[in-house]
């Protein structure tokens, strides 16, 4: 039995997938979701084998959903937009169904999904990062907190701190933990706005009030809210290079 979750904000699009899946008795549609939040919740609760995922949706888009779910679920994108397809395939997305599609194309996607289910998949987060078009930086960061999803606009992020396999995200007086390396977070943020001032710290440049010498060869950054973060020698060099460019 293959358990499937359908995620699309359009009722007609969901019913089309349901209809096509109806002719396969070995497939069970465990849930239908009309937005990204519902999708993240459904995947966490139902642990489906396969997800049909729309890209353009209210609340969270398909890529953000992909980033928040575990890597056990195989994902087939279903969208009218073709611009993310190539990069998604690069990291072995199961399939990329372009609307409108016919039954034959759908069956092909389902066959691919069947073969892939149970096989090892690249982590979903990697899939999402790759599927983001190049030269486009994140505008917001999504974090899952139990069943809840927090959305942090990037300009509200004060700084990020590496903590083992997690990053701690400080925003609007609250801390959020996300399973991600600080380097991959750094890579997805606009380098003109966020700077790695230390091996463990990535700071929003707009929050930096001043840089003060601390000890020989080391400095601290004082943020507008008074937070003090260490600045390494390499970090200071990067800061000078960035500010020098301006």
């Amino acid at each position, binding site marked *: 039995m293959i358990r499937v979750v359908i995620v699309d904000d359009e009722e007609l699009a969901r*019913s*089309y997938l349901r209809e096509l899946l109806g002719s396969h008795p070995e497939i069970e549609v465990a849930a239908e979701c009309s937005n990204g939040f519902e999708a993240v919740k459904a995947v966490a609760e139902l642990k489906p084998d396969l997800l049909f995922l729309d890209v353009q949706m209210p*609340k969270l888009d398909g890529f953000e959903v992909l980033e928040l779910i575990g890597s056990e679920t195989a994902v087939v994108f279903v969208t009218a937009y073709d611009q993310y397809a190539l990069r998604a395939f690069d990291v072995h997305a199961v399939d990329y169904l372009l609307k*409108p599609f016919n039954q034959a194309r759908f069956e092909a996607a389902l066959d691919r999904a069947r073969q892939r289910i149970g096989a090892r998949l690249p982590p979903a987060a990697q899939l999402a990062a790759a599927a983001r078009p190049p030269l486009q930086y994140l505008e917001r960061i999504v974090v899952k907190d139990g069943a809840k999803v927090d959305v942090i606009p990037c300009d509200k992020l004060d700084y990020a701190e590496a903590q083992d396999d997690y990053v701690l995200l400080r925003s609007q007086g609250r801390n959020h933990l996300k399973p991600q390396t600080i380097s991959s977070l750094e890579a997805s943020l606009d380098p003109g706005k966020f700077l790695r001032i230390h091996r463990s710290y990535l700071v929003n440049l707009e929050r930096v009030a001043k840089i003060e010498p601390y000890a020989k060869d080391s400095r601290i950054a004082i943020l507008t809210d008074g937070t003090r973060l260490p600045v390494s020698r390499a970090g200071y060099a990067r800061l000078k290079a960035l500010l020098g460019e301006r």
Partner: protein
Amino acid sequence: MHPLLAGKDRLGLYLLAWVPLAALLARMLAAGGELSWSETLSIVLPLAAIYAFVCLSAWYVCRFVPIRPAGIPRLLLANLAAAALSSGLWVMAGRALAAALGLEAKYARHVSTLFGMGALLYLLSAAFHYLLLAVEASREARAREAEARILARDAELRALKAQINPHFLFNSLHSIAALAAAQPGRAREMCALLSDFLRASLGLGERESIPFAEELALANRFLAVEQVRFGSRLRVEERVEEDTKDCPVPPLLLQPLVENAVLHGIATLVEGGAIVIEARRLDGGVWIAVENTFDESAPARRANGVGLANVRRRLEARYGTAARLDVRISGGLYRVELLVPAEAEVPR
């Protein structure tokens, strides 16, 4: 900046034109016989050089008092006064120069001639500057007209492209595919709606203007197609006054706004929302507003600006400052208001 002072070549050419004028002045002063040629030249050369630059000031007067049928007396008055003033000052400068050279008595006999010549030269310069301004104005007008035409064509192409937004088509076709098996009747209806919209939009870009009623019908056809996709999530309210329907408007002006309202408004909301289209007559033109609800926490989409910027540029290219387009964002409402002026106000 004075156009002749802007380039060395132009200024050189202008000063060259003063050589024969200086010769004429010298001829007149020397004609009396009291002044020797060397005395004449020592007075005339500096005076001519000074006056060449004084006459450039006519440009500012010409700009300040442009040629208008109603303003002829004012124009004459301003230029005659400027001529008298310039020439008077000039003659006085000449007197000071003559005094320095000890030729005051001989110079005094020529004051009235010099004053007359000075005034005449100034007026000549004013005429020349009016000509210059007219040439410049016509060149600017041509450039502006050409730019407006390019902008309009460019905008029309973009509008047309946006019109047949491929994703709109793909999504609509997908809806038809979804309906085909379960609800063939509705699938056929959707085919008809989509065809209606496409047919209505074909060829619109070539027309200068269409009655507002036609533009509104096009937008409604678009919304009818989207209604099938979004179902109860898309609600439309129309507050359009009857007397706006005949008003001529540029085609494809309302449609991109309505499309934005669906794409960036309704589609971002789980529960959907309402689009309100308003229109009424204002100052002989037509005032149009499109308002929609949207998700404030959704990241601002760059694409949002394209359709809107396009509409704004087309309005500007066609109506200049007579048209208005305002965007108001407050409390989850996105509102675009625009004023299409009456055709009579189109600047020629």
